[in-house]
């Protein structure tokens, strides 16, 4: 999966669990904007694991890692 495909996939997954059907800005806080609530977050993380074929360790399960599209991409890149 190249970088463009990866970004597209992340956006798809975020929109799948977002409370509104809209495209968030890359740096927008998904929490502060109300797009992602506490209970959608674990489901979104599970979906990211499945889509990118990774297992996120418990130590990395901190909301900040998944707060925006940019942060999600940064975290996934760190797992290469």
């Amino acid at each position: 999966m190249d970088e463009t495909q990866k970004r597209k996939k992340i956006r798809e997954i975020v929109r799948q669990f977002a409370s509104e059907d809209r495209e968030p800005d890359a740096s927008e806080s998904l929490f502060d904007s109300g797009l992602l609530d506490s209970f959608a977050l674990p489901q979104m993380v599970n979906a990211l694991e499945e889509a990118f074929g990774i297992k996120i360790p418990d130590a990395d399960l901190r909301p900040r890692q998944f707060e925006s599209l940019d942060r999600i991409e940064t975290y996934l890149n760190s797992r290469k």
Partner: protein
Amino acid sequence: MANIEAFGAYLPARAVSNAELARWLGCEADWILQASGIAERRYAAEDEDVVDLAARAAEACLARAGRRAADVGCLIVASATGRRRIPGPAALVAVRLGIGEAPALDVPAASAGGLIAMALGNLLAPAYGMVLIVAAEKMSTLVRREPPDRNVAILFGDGAGACLLQAEGGRARIVDHVLHSDGAFADSLAVGADGALAMDGRTVILQASRKLPRTITEVLDRNSVPAADVSAFLLHQANQNLLDGVARALQVPAGRLFSNVRAYGNTSSASLLIAAAEWEEREGFRSGAPVVFAAFGAGFHWGALLAVGI
């Protein structure tokens, strides 16, 4: 290993509705229900403390088992909201019940406390005979503060639950248990020196959503019991959304996870045994049917216990 003989529970009389809470917190009652799945919680009276709550639940449990307090070989009380830091409530509960000089041990471990106490009782019953487990919390002392923390205040209530274990006989045999702790997240859910409860809800949910299904699977796998064969899952009643998430992760029907969180909110360590007492009244153990107990809470501490009906 020990057997489960009976459960008991006590809920304070005063029910606090979402409408009452909403007036205090300046929010909508519907928002509280939507965010938490909680419609009501109980608050203990001003002069009622965890010793009072614990004693009432213990008496209910002993009555249900047809046992006398004097027969108890060991008492374990899980509570993190006692009136005093030292001594913990266990010794006072023992006096109140008339247990005598049997050891009375405190487990101040918040939401996982009821499960930890059951696991310890499971290990101690062969040595002490009848072990009485009690979990009691007066969470209202932590959340009824000014200014209130809305996200915390909507969740918690007061109550107590109890469980009587013994080396032989009873209604169910405890087959196995697992306990885990990870202090790396200690700040995510904590009561500080000022007595205020601080909670990073997203971290708690994210971690609990992962650790609860995994610890349940751990205890089931090592005893070769498929999740689909478990007749009931009795979990710490944190909120309905978390219970539903655990059911999804285990791929079992949501109804298999007993829930009374709508009626009582999150009563921390007490919730597991209050749930067990209500479940026992409505359904109860069936011969050969596996039942799982599980909890997750501040620490983080978490674990699961597998019992099979006799």
